[in-house]
C-alpha cells in the first residue's frame, strides 16, 4: 500500500516537474510547480517528517508561489510574449542532451553507493515531529536561527529599495 503510494507520488512529482519546464504558458508552469510542491509534501509525510511537510506547504506552496504568480500576472507574461522570445532549437537539444548525460552519470555513480542499513535497534520515529525539531532548533541551532531573521530583514529592505520608483523612471 505505502509502496504504491510512493510510486504514485513520485510519478506525479516528476510529471509536474516536466510540466514546469515544457509548458508554453508561464502561468501553467507556476501551477505545475505548486502540484510538485504538494506531492513533495506527501513524500515528507510518508517519511514521517511532519514539520518539514507543513513548512513546505506554508512557505513554498503558499508564500513563494503566490509571489511568483503575482509577478507573472503583474508583468502580464503569457503565451504570446513567450512566443516572441528568441529561441534556437540547437540550444534546446544541447540542453536536454547535457542534462540527460548528467542524469546517466549520476545514476551510474550512485547505483553502487554504500548507504548503510536502517538501525532497527535505536530507531526513533519521532524525530520529524515539531516538538523534537523545535527543541533542536532553539538549543543547538539557536545562532543560525537568529541569523536567519537578520537575513530576512536585509532581504526585505533590499526588495523595497529595488522596487522603489525613481523620479525620472517611466510609469507602467
Amino acid at each position, binding site marked *: 500500500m*505505502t*509502496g504504491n*503510494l*510512493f510510486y504514485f507520488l*513520485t510519478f506525479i512529482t*516528476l510529471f509536474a516537474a516536466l510540466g*514546469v*519546464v515544457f509548458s508554453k504558458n*508561464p502561468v501553467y*508552469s507556476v501551477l505545475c*510547480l505548486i502540484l510538485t*510542491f504538494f506531492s*513533495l509534501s506527501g*513524500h*515528507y509525510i*510518508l517519511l*514521517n*517528517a511532519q*514539520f*518539514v511537510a507543513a513548512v*513546505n506547504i506554508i*512557505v513554498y506552496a503558499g508564500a*513563494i508561489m503566490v*509571489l*511568483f504568480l503575482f*509577478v507573472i500576472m*503583474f*508583468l502580464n*507574461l503569457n503565451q504570446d510574449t513567450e512566443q516572441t*522570445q*528568441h529561441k534556437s532549437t540547437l540550444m534546446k537539444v544541447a*540542453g*536536454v542532451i*547535457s*542534462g*540527460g548525460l*548528467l542524469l546517466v552519470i549520476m545514476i551510474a555513480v*550512485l547505483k553502487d*553507493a554504500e*548507504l*548503510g542499513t*536502517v538501525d*532497527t535497534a535505536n*530507531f*526513533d*520515529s519521532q*524525530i*520529524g515531529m515539531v516538538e*523534537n*525539531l523545535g527543541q*533542536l532548533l532553539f538549543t543547538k*541551532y539557536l545562532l*543560525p536561527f537568529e541569523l*536567519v531573521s537578520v*537575513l530576512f530583514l536585509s532581504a526585505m529592505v*533590499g*526588495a523595497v529599495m529595488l*522596487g522603489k520608483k525613481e523620479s525620472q*523612471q*517611466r510609469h507602467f
Partner: protein
Amino acid sequence: MNEIPEVIRTIPLHYYLFFSSTLFVIGIIGVLTRRNAIIIFMCIELMLNAVNLLLTAFSAYRSDANGQVFVFFIMAVAAAEVCVGLAIIVMIYRNLRTTDINILSNLKW
C-alpha cells in the same frame, strides 16, 4: 508509537537517491533550455527541492534530526532569495520591457 514507518521498511534509500537526482536534472534542463528569467528562477526552486527531499530522506532513514533542521534553513534562505530575485526581475522589466535573458546581455564582453 516507536515503530519504523512502512515506507522506510519497504522502499530502499537508493530509490530516493534516483528520484531526487531526476528532479535535480529536470531543474538543470529547465535552466539550460528556457529563455524566460522567471521560469529559470522556478527551475532553481525545483533543484533546491530535490536537495531538500534527499536531506529529509537521509535524516528519516538514519533517524537523525539535524538533516531536517537543515531543510528548514534551506527553505528560509530560498524564501529570502526569491524575494530579492523577483524584485530584481521586476526592475529589469521596468527598464527593458522584457524578461528574455537573451536581451539581458549587458554583462557580456
